[in-house]
């Protein structure tokens, strides 16, 4: 508990800023949704034939998964707050339009007739009778929209729009519970706070005041946003994980003295954003297929801050004892895949759109390792993977090897969000093994003292030996032999831009970005 408060204290500046950004994103998007949704709701209450179309469209918008919607926004609006606000706005639209429509239709027809009979014009009936009487329902819609958006806004951190999602995703990636909570708790509190305030508004019906306040705040924040989004020098996009790591941005600052303008962004959209020149530098992985696809270059780590990330199966000791043939089967892959081969395999899956299964089978055939599945009746091995292509391919290879070389069956649980989720699944006996990287094992899972890291990272073998010994001792888990490639962190730029600026090493980059 104390540690958590210490963490909060040490991050208070960042926390305040992220909370503000979060409120910002939520309120602006809801304000726009009110500004457009309420008139739209009024329109369809007047013309019922439009109602089906409009409500249908808003409904479809809400069924699109948030991540996908954010992804669609990048080609249209780039990265940062604008696309996030548009996506959030689309989410907020349905409850507001629907409740306006329902509210106005729910006004007693006798009262509407009386209003007309008294000599009110159409607008007077709307503003003096229909809107005030539908206000409780309308505000309930705004309330729903706001609470939804506080939640969805955490995902804005995926596309460099900031907000409390930075802590949440950073925490998940870094296996840092305090960091997850530092994002999740304020987000939950914000949702409760907004819900409470709007609930009061609903009861008191001081709606003019409330709407004016929301509009005012939104305008204020919008102005702030426009004021701060200054264009400038080179812009870097880093994943939440990279931002919080010694072998990431923290190390870049400390060892290279790098201090450049940066945003936090999700790995899945980072390359796309760079390809569209929204970003100049990104943090990637050295075997990513997109390096080949987008013609990127990796900057040389001339002061060696990125430790080696050799991939190897991380496996429960129990399962190896249970199925004696398993270890040698998994080790068939050891040393077979080099950096460039892995990049190529990733490229085939990501850009030539071959299924990971095909890529894996072709590779195993080439290597003469492929055998058709055997009986699969001696037991089941459960394989996990994180959610990216390389892991999918490796899992497929292991599946084929196990099915072809032993009588075991395989159930694979691909798509375990991040390192922490995979690792927890493994230690809780939900899976038997997954492909892990030595560097991740060292820095994310073991987290040894800084001086130990500095000593270890210089050699690939010393890191491997260290994690092997420590995992056995602490978790009774074993690292099998490395597959061969080193999927380390790397800073990347577009080849053309790197040549133009004569940037080839990280030191070069530090020189031109730091005054």
């Amino acid at each position, binding site marked *: 508990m104390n540690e958590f408060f210490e963490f909060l204290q040490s991050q208070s500046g960042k926390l305040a800023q992220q909370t503000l950004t979060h409120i910002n994103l939520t309120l602006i998007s809801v304000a726009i949704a009110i500004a457009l949704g309420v008139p739209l709701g009024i329109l369809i209450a007047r013309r019922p034939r439009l109602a089906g179309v409009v409500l249908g469209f808003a409904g479809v918008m809400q069924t699109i998964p948030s991540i996908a919607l954010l992804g669609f926004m990048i080609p249209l609006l780039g990265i940062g707050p604008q696309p996030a606000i548009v996506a959030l706005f689309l989410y907020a639209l349905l409850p507001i339009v629907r409740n306006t429509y329902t509210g106005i239709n729910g006004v007693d027809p006798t009262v509407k*007739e009386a209003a007309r009979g008294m*000599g009110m014009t159409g607008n*007077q009936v709307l503003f003096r009778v229909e809107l005030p009487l539908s206000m409780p329902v309308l505000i309930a819609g705004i309330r729903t929209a706001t609470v939804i958006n506080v939640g969805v806004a955490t995902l804005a951190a995926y596309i460099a729009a900031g907000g409390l999602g930075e802590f949440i995703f950073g925490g998940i990636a870094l296996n840092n519970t305090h960091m997850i909570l530092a994002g999740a708790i304020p987000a939950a509190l914000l949702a409760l706070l907004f819900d409470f305030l709007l609930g009061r508004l609903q009861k008191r019906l001081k709606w003019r005041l409330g709407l004016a306040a929301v509009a005012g705040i939104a305008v204020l924040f919008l102005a702030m946003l426009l004021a701060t989004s200054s264009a400038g020098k080179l812009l870097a996009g880093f994943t939440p994980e990279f931002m919080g790591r010694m072998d990431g941005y923290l190390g870049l600052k400390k060892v290279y003295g790098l201090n450049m303008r940066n945003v936090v962004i999700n790995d899945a959209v980072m390359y796309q954003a760079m390809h569209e020149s929204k970003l100049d530098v990104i943090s990637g992985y050295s075997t990513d297929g997109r390096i080949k696809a987008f013609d990127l270059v990796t900057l040389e780590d001339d002061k060696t801050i990125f430790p080696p990330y050799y991939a190897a199966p991380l496996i429960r000791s129990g399962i190896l004892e249970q199925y004696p043939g398993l270890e040698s089967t998994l080790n068939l892959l050891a040393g077979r895949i080099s950096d460039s081969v892995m990049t190529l395999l990733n490229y085939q899956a990501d850009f030539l759109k071959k299924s990971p299964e095909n890529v894996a089978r072709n590779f195993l055939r080439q290597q003469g390792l492929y055998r058709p599945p055997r009986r699969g009746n001696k037991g089941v091995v459960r394989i996990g993977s994180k959610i990216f292509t390389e892991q999918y391919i490796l899992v497929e290879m292991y599946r084929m090897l196990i099915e072809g070389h032993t009588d075991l069956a395989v159930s694979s649980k691909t798509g375990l969000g991040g390192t922490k989720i995979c690792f927890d699944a493994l230690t809780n006996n939900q899976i038997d093994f997954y492909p892990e990287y030595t560097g991740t094992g060292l820095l994310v899972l073991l987290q040894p003292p800084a001086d130990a890291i500095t000593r270890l990272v210089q050699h690939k073998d010393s890191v491997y030996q260290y994690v092997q010994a420590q995992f056995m001792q602490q978790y009774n888990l074993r690292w099998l032999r490395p597959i061969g490639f080193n999927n380390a962190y790397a800073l990347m730029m577009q080849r053309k831009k790197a040549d133009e600026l004569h940037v080839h090493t990280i030191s070069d980059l530090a020189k031109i970005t730091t005054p």
Partner: protein
Amino acid sequence: MIEVRNLGKTFGNVHAVQQISFTVAEGENLILLGTSGCGKTTTLKMINRLLDPDEGTVLLNGTDTATIPPARLRRGMGYVLQHTGLFPHYTVAENIAVVPRLQHWKKEDVRARAAALMQKLGLTWQEHAHMYPHQLSGGQQQRVGLARALAADPPVLLMDEPFGALDPITRNRIRQEFSELEEFRKKTIIMVTHDVQEAFALATRVCLMDKGRIVQMGTPEELQQRPANEFVRAFLKL
């Protein structure tokens, strides 16, 4: 003052109203009497253009009402509804003030007028002005509905079953009070009812309708003494 010429209105293929013509002189009380669905309410709503006629015209002081903007036309005609149609989000005072405020009266005048009307209708400013409609009894609500219709002192009053939703005792009492108001005597009133007794108590002339057409029109005495046909005789229970 009001002249109705050959009004006709069709809903789908139902002829709600056909060939209705009558004239109402200033200060007269015309009661549209008939069973449910005979077209009396439809006729009334065509006078203040809540419905637009398919055929025929309504003249107000010689002007075709189709040429008057509906909102302006209606502000000159008080309107009382059966189920009051009071605005649930307005207090009693605010409900009464609706039309004067639409006509941009001064605040003091609005308040004075509301207070005066409330007093005439047996409500007190202190007790009732700040109550909301749902806090009032049915009879009180109907009084507020009357006050709202009378507030801007319109020369014409249209009333659609104004006492219809009340219990018989309250209905008789309010009707009695209403007929004693000076407003009642001064104004040109067109009122819809299905209650023969009520019609005869309030009418200068009665217009008896059936199936969308006028069956007989005349003073209560004329209808009683010289009923035009069996229907009139049966309806009036003569």
